[in-house]
């Protein structure tokens, strides 16, 4: 899918989300997640980026649900999401220091969005899935628990697997190392995919 088609699909999904389509919004989030996350790299020392990501998506859902809001132009929803994410990151930065919020309307620089270049790269997905299947049992179950559950606390996931929390985390760390090694053996370097 070319950039123009992807931008068109992005706008279409955001409109569908306006009609109450949570699945459409989920697909929209999937398309913008990586570029949005990458854009927050410079805030990584100051804020919990996961908080910024989730808060940004919650605010974008409110925008999508508001019939009075209209985002104009190609990939307007992505561009707006960049602005919201930047603002949320600034709010979080200030909260940790001054405990006050900024006004959403007082946005300055508009950071241009870039699309996730290979969101559906089937070869990469196959390599990752294959390496995951080849993990030793305990690391695979620990990492899989994070993937299969709707974001439950690690403590709960560890209990389900009858592991201590520390053991659960150790198994995930090992799973990641094994995945990295396996992918490198297939010529995939995650750092390159991430950049």
């Amino acid at each position, binding site marked *: 899918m070319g950039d123009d088609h992807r931008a068109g699909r992005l706008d279409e999904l955001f409109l569908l989300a306006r009609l109450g389509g*949570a699945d459409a919004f989920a697909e929209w989030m999937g398309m913008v997640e990586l570029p949005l996350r990458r854009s927050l790299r410079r805030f990584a020392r100051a804020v919990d980026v996961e908080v910024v990501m989730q808060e940004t*998506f919650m605010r974008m859902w409110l925008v999508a649900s508001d019939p009075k809001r209209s985002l104009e132009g190609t990939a307007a929803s992505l561009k707006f999401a960049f602005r919201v994410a930047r603002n949320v990151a600034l709010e979080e930065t200030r909260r940790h220091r001054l405990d006050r919020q900024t006004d959403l309307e007082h946005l300055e620089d508009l950071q241009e969005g870039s699309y996730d270049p290979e969101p559906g790269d089937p070869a990469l997905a196959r390599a990752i899935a294959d390496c995951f299947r080849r993990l030793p049992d305990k690391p695979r179950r620990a990492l899989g628990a994070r993937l299969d559950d709707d974001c439950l606390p690690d403590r709960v996931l560890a209990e389900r697997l009858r592991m201590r929390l520390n053991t659960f985390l150790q198994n995930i760390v090992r799973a990641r190392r094994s995945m990295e090694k396996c992918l490198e053996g297939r010529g995939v370097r995650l750092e390159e995919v991430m950049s």
Partner: protein
Amino acid sequence: MTDEPKDLLIEEAVSAFRERNSWGRILPSPAWMDLPPADREALFERQLASSILERAIHPSGRSSTVRAVLARLR
């Protein structure tokens, strides 16, 4: 098992689970609060890698961040 405590702390913060306060504000992970700035950069890279892996492995193609938000919306 002899992994460094730093690695485990970073891994704890990689989880997309976040508590909320009584006003609904999403709170930083306690593990993130305990990380020194340099390790927060390492966390950022691991979160990014984790999103890529999750999208490839999960049957829905959704990362845990997307699923966490979706769970809030439904």
